[in-house]
């Protein structure tokens, strides 16, 4: 007996309520943009410059005491947060302290870290600083630029690839889904004010990869079915293709989520934000490949006259022999 998450033959009509789904997506996209504009992103020092210090002590962290000790140093905006993780020992108390980039300084201010460590040692003897990271404003500016550029280039490259492999309508559908996923991910980071740093950009690009993976599998089947069922109308072909690949879509999402959830729970607090972005991305990516990419394709319509009969003809992988 096999474990079947999706029963063998499904005939869901994914487009019965396509207007609603597009509406839902549109609402979430707008909400994400509004949230990002109003609340902003909780940029980490990678993008904003500044210093983060991880302080570890055997005594419980009292944020107010820490703040009272640090404030007289006049370092501007500071944020102190206690960090919790199931893997910590009972007497392991961790605080994450963030200091804004100091004004008028091109490089990082090192004496500041020394002074700060000294005052914390006064209030919590035996405190250690397992990690100190400082990024000067010059580098952070460049990091933002190259990160934004990376995302844009990734989308452009993908657009071109799909356009070559399929038709432009497919490329538009896939990229529509990608942009949707990225905006929703940024939106959730803004709404929950989770730290947004370089690793999150990596997560975003992975989401791009994953969402695409899903979309491409559906599209590949659409292309095949378009050739096979020349008389069926487009929405039936799309529905059939999504239903046929549904079992695979769910299986892959579940295995990926299994691995990611394990990392989220057990992987430590350092990469939790990064893993969260990916889990969210897998969920949104799976949804969007069906409801955004395919709906877009349905609206745009596709050329039905595929002059070349074979499903791998006319592309550079036609001769790959597995």
């Amino acid at each position: 007996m096999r474990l079947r998450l999706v029963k063998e033959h499904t005939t869901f009509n994914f487009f019965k309520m396509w207007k609603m789904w597009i509406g839902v997506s549109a609402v979430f996209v707008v909400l994400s943009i509004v949230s990002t504009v109003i609340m902003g992103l909780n940029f980490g020092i990678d993008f904003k410059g500044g210093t983060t210090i991880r302080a570890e002590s055997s005594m419980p962290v009292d944020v107010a005491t820490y703040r009272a000790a640090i404030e007289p140093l006049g370092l501007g905006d500071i944020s102190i947060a206690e960090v919790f993780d199931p893997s910590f020992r009972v007497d392991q108390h961790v605080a994450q302290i963030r200091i804004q980039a100091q004004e008028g300084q091109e490089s990082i201010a090192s004496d500041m870290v020394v002074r700060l460590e000294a005052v914390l040692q006064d209030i919590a003897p035996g405190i250690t600083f397992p990690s100190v990271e400082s990024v000067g404003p010059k580098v952070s500016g460049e990091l933002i630029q190259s990160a934004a550029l990376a995302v844009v280039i990734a989308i452009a490259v993908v657009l071109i690839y799909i356009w070559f492999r399929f038709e432009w309508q497919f490329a538009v559908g896939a990229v529509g889904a990608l942009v949707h996923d990225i905006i929703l991910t940024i939106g959730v980071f803004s709404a929950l004010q989770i730290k947004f740093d370089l690793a999150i950009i990596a997560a975003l690009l992975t989401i791009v990869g994953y969402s695409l993976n899903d979309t491409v599998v559906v599209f590949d089947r659409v292309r095949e079915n378009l050739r096979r069922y020349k008389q069926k109308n487009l929405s039936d072909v799309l529905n059939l293709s999504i239903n046929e690949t549904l079992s695979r879509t769910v299986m892959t999402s579940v295995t990926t989520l299994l691995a990611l959830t394990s990392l989220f729970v057990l992987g430590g607090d350092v990469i939790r934000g990064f893993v969260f972005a990916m889990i969210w991305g897998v969920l949104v990516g799976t949804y969007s490949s069906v409801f955004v990419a395919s709906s877009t394709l349905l609206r745009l319509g596709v050329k039905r006259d595929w002059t070349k009969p074979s499903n791998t003809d006319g592309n550079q992988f036609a001769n790959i022999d597995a």
Partner: protein
Amino acid sequence: MLQIEGWKRFLIWATCALGLLFALPNAFYSKVETYNDASDEGKEAKGWPTFLPSGLVNLGLDLRGGAHLLGEVKLAEVYTSRLESFWPEVRNALREERATIGAIRQQDGGEAKLRVRIGKPEAMDSAIKVVQTLARPVASFSGGMTDDIVVTAVGDNLIVTLSDAEKLATDDRTMAQSLEIIRRRVDEAGTREPTIQRQGTDRILIQVPGLGSAQELKDLIGTPALLTFQAVVGETSNPNGNAGIGNELVQAADNEKTYYILERAPVVTGEDLTDAQPAFDQNGRPAVNFRFNTSGAKKFGQYTTDNIGEPFAIVLDKQVISAPRIQSAITGGSGIITGDFDVTESTRLSTLLRAGSLPASLIFLEERTVGPELGQDSIDAGKTACIVGFGAVLIFMALSYGTFGIFANIALIINVGMIFGLLSMVGATLTLPGIAGIVLTIGMAVDANVLIFERIREELKTAKGPARAIELGYEKALSAITDANITTFLTATILFIMGAGPVKGFAVTLGLGIITSVFTAIFVTRIMVVIWFEWRKPKILEV
């Protein structure tokens, strides 16, 4: 029908075996590490067979702990000092033409400019010509030769700047020199496997594993350590006092209110030092002993012979460390620097003096330190997460696809082994996001198999028999597999090119993971399916 030729089978298994062989050392990490650290003769005693590969996955600083610094070299400083040293030559040349040009006077030039006011502005053209004759040729970008200086005029000011070609050549020299000096300083400090790299035009990346604090490292490499011995003209407490032509005002290191007026041209500089060692003076206070090379010893000997009873200043990075009176001629070529040091400072100063001074100052743009304990915690957490996630995926696959699921699982285990093998082979660095990349790959690697298995299930409904269904399943799933993986691989490549540090590590494991997962899905599981099929010859197939 379902057939794989013998040589192909051999090739597939051989590739797997090779990948796993290269991954093997990582299972015995500490043992292999001591083996690799051992000298060639001592290797055999370390318990790792010499015929096995011994490449290990490098752990990134976020996993092993260490300090990461990104410094920027102030290249323009060198232009200024180049032009500064050019002044005597310009002055002499212009003085010879005094009759036509008139009196000349050096003006405050600003950054990277030498500015000279000339008495008769109408003779500017001939002044420019005179200075231009001093130009030396340098190789230009286009391959031809061009002058190293550019001479222009604004009003009665003659301005000398370095040409672009000369700037470029100077930049390269400055960077090479800075890298060399930093490398020497880090080596002198005895740290292990530092990475010191040039990045872009003016940046230097320094990574030192195992270091708990970046402060120490910054003190060591961020100090210019420019040592000069200069003649003392006088002493003042006025920080804005007029030092006079050819002199400069320098603050005392131990007393903020004291300023020395020194002759600008040094008697001897740190470049003439051959050795420096921490020591103690006759009062038992920490000091630094130094020794000059022959030419330095000669210059210093001559100067001290001529100036007995006069004070001279030992200047380090624009601060007078001490200004002793010359008691007797020092012709032996060695001496002692005393000052307000403690033992750590005297040790550091002697290290810096031995390594030489930086040609330009260095500022730090980025600094990241991770303590070794935190790194170990991350490794442990990553390991647990990998094992649990791995186990969950294995069970899930076996439940979903039965025998075929087990094949996919074996392939997945080989896959993870091969990722480590490849990482060790190419000497890539594993970072914390890199571990996340592996976990993600575990989740996504089964995708190719899932695509194939689902396709086989579909084909079973319509095709003529199990063998044909398997064959069609592989054939038809291939196009989706290639498209899906190529797009993911493209994003991994972009991440690798654009990303920095840990993100790059993530891109590497993700990219390698895609290659190995496609390989294992379309070759390894297939060969297992084929062998099983030949052995069992099932009439009815359940996937």
